[in-house]
């Protein structure tokens, strides 16, 4: 079975986010009423697994082994059965 995966990696609370701070300043320069910006990364991919449970377990492993550094990163994931339907 094919699963569609979306992983979002973000900085843990309390960790400095210089990219976010710089982006916030730039948005303020453009006169948008923005206070804070948090920068993260989004990864999307498909994964083959025997079941949704196994797919979720593998995604957890992928995040812990490569996509996130547990020292500073949190991650969230959405794993769904891949749909072949074409949206019109």
């Amino acid at each position, binding site marked *: 079975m094919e699963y569609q995966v979306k992983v979002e990696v973000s900085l*843990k609370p*309390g*960790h*400095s986010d*210089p*990219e976010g*701070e*710089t982006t916030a300043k730039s948005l303020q320069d453009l006169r948008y009423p923005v206070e804070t910006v948090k920068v993260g*990364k989004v990864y999307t991919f498909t994964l083959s697994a025997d079941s949704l449970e196994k797919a979720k377990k593998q995604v957890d492993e992928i995040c*812990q*082994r*490569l*996509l996130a*550094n*547990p*020292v*500073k990163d949190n991650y969230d994931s959405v794993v769904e059965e891949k749909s072949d339907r074409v949206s019109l």
Partner: protein
Amino acid sequence: MEAGIKVCILRVAGTNCDAETKRSFEDLGVKAEILHLSRLVKEKSLFDYSALVFPGGFSYGDYVRAGAILAKRTLAKLGSDMKEFIEEERLILGICNGFQVLVEAGLLPRFSRVSEHPEASLATNIPIGYHCNWAHIKHENSGRCIFTQKIPKGKTLEIPVAHAEGRFIFSKETETDYLEKLYENDQLVFRYCDENGEYANGKYPINPNGAFHDIAGICDDTGRIFGLMPHPERAYYGWQLPNWTRKEKIPKYSDGKLIFQSMVEYLKKNFT
């Protein structure tokens, strides 16, 4: 060339300063080979070499996180060999991106064993941006680190940095304990300081990246794995110094040589 000693400088897409690193070893009479990871895996053996160097650069474009992909690829392709390589008391050096690789691979700080997940991180610089300038670092090690044996404790070195992700941190929950461990195990090697040896205390640009406790370099608990953000190969010769043309007498060598010399002395003693 010193018979028996060979250093492997690992190259992949995006690494740099491999040529300068090779030249530094060769100046000390040691054979150094720049080798692509794929060639090392397919055609050679890690055990042909007594030391492995992860050079500077932006391996695999710094994608995911700086050093993360090369760290995982190396472990995936050479994991058991790396373990044996370390057990055989061979040396591993990581310069700049190489330091990021060693941290991401769990080989540093490596308090007692290789950790499955990184125990530290080299995060985005504060202030943000790519910083390329000459830095001063103070030698903090009391003798554990093989790579700084020729450097008296407390000596200040002038070596350039060039990175965007060099802010050494531990997790908030572990930083107090881990810093204590670094001191207890004599794993702290270099801290950023000013030209008089006064610690930066986080102040930019003396501390060029906002590193926790001004940490610029650490070793593992054996002293045989070492990583640092500054580039010693860019401060090997006197003519690499920024002000060399203004000096009355140009020194032949510069501070970076001491790191390579320390390394070579150990290799000569143990691998010839």
